[in-house]
């Protein structure tokens, strides 16, 4: 606590932002970051094979994936979270299975809901990018005698990722903002911390503005990260030459 003396001094005349509530916000920030980061990584890992399958010409592959993305994009994330969190307990005997230690917590049901949701959106973003591959590139690859797999790996996916990047950056920001609903299943994320402070000190403006400011900072960080990525990866699309 000694190294926080300056913080205590700063907060001395303040009823709401005590070191304790700052700690709540900090813990909330950690939970939000973990939740969003893990669900994005897992969603991305799921979305790549799904997007390839979704752009397949074989209907028995693409149709089930389409149904999945349609359902998860067609229903509110909040409802999906409720179904996964409150719905699972209506399976008799779930408390006795090995899944219960995971489903008992609020974190994992939220993580599952967020992952499935972002995977559905990301699948569609990538599918669009794969479909938009110029025919010439594919024909050239075929002319070189590349197999389907090699062509996917060397030609289609790298250029699809680049095309998908701006849209995917938006999805990441949407996911951060959507994570605010995690507090309805008692998770103490950033919004959960704000709701706690609001309810305890009856101070809606202070509690939520502070949380909003943190979300804003996170959004800017994501925005700059993607701008940097775009600058590097899409450099070849910029106008070339001396003028």
């Amino acid at each position, binding site marked *: 606590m000694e190294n926080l003396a300056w913080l205590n001094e700063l907060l001395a005349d303040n009823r709401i932002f005590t070191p304790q509530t700052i700690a709540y916000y900090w813990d909330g920030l950690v939970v939000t970051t973990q939740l969003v980061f893990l669900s994005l990584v897992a969603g991305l890992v799921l979305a790549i094979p799904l997007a390839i399958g979704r752009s397949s010409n074989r209907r028995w592959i693409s149709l089930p994936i389409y149904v999945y993305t349609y359902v998860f994009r067609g229903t509110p994330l909040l409802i999906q979270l409720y179904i996964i969190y*409150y719905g699972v307990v209506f399976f008799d005997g779930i408390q006795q299975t090995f899944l*219960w230690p995971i489903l008992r917590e*609020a974190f994992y049901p939220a993580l599952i809901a967020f992952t499935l949701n972002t995977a559905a959106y990301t699948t569609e973003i990538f599918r669009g990018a794969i479909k938009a591959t110029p025919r010439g590139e594919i024909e050239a690859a075929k002319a070189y005698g590349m197999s389907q797999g090699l062509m996917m790996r060397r030609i289609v996916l790298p250029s699809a990722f680049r095309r998908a990047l701006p849209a995917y950056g938006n999805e990441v920001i949407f996911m951060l903002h959507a994570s605010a609903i995690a507090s309805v299943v*008692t998770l103490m994320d950033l919004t959960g911390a704000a709701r*706690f402070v*609001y*309810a*305890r000190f*009856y101070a809606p403006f202070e509690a939520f503005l502070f949380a909003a400011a943190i979300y804003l900072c996170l959004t800017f960080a994501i925005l700059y990260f993607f701008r940097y990525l775009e600058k590097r990866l899409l450099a070849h699309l910029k106008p070339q030459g001396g003028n």
Partner: protein
Amino acid sequence: MKNAFLASLAGVVLVFGQAHARDSYDHVRFGVDVPYEPMQYRTPDGELTGFDIDLGNALCEQMGITCEWIEQQWDGIIPGLMARNYDAIMSSMTINEERRAQVLFSDAYFTPPSAWFGPVDTDIEMPSEESLAGRTLGVQRGTLQDSYATDFYGDVASVRRYSSVDDMLLDMESGRLDLVFVNYPVGKTTLLDSERSEYRVVGEMIREPYEYFGDGIAIAFRPRDEALAERFNEALAALKEDGTYDEIHDRYFTD
């Protein structure tokens, strides 16, 4: 033209000023957090009922005014009063210092204790820092039970906060919570008297410390509505006098 404008302005000021000075409410809107059985809840056919509701309606009748109930989730109930979404809060709100800084309370009309509830087979006998270490505790967000559990056990146990009592009970039933901490009449009605009563009170009734549990429950008003609070106090005294209060009390509390 200018004079007409000024005259009408003066008229407006006069009308509003008068309405304000009389401070006469002939219609009072109560903010209430539903469900909180048996204090306030809906019957199967959707009718609003409960101790707070019946007493509030009886008070209004006694005062010769009409009243209306507006539902509001607990964690926003005081800001809602300040935002004039309703004129008073009659929702089992305990008088304590933190709230007294925000609202004006009537006289207390009931003094329920709080209690811990858990499954019949729980191995916790007496809630303490040791016995609750590592456990999961449920409370309703922004209640005095939330403040108490957070301050006393927040460091050793994980406190999960719910927007409504219903959500909390659902998680209790599914086994996500080890104990819940609620106002005793609410826990008794919803957990002990439920159809498959698999719950019991863990430890003793809790009424202390005073900073948390205060002086009992009361109606909350905006601080400027002193006259209105006074009228409610008189009506409450009258209902206690003529036995109406006892009659309503016995409708909901057997012991």
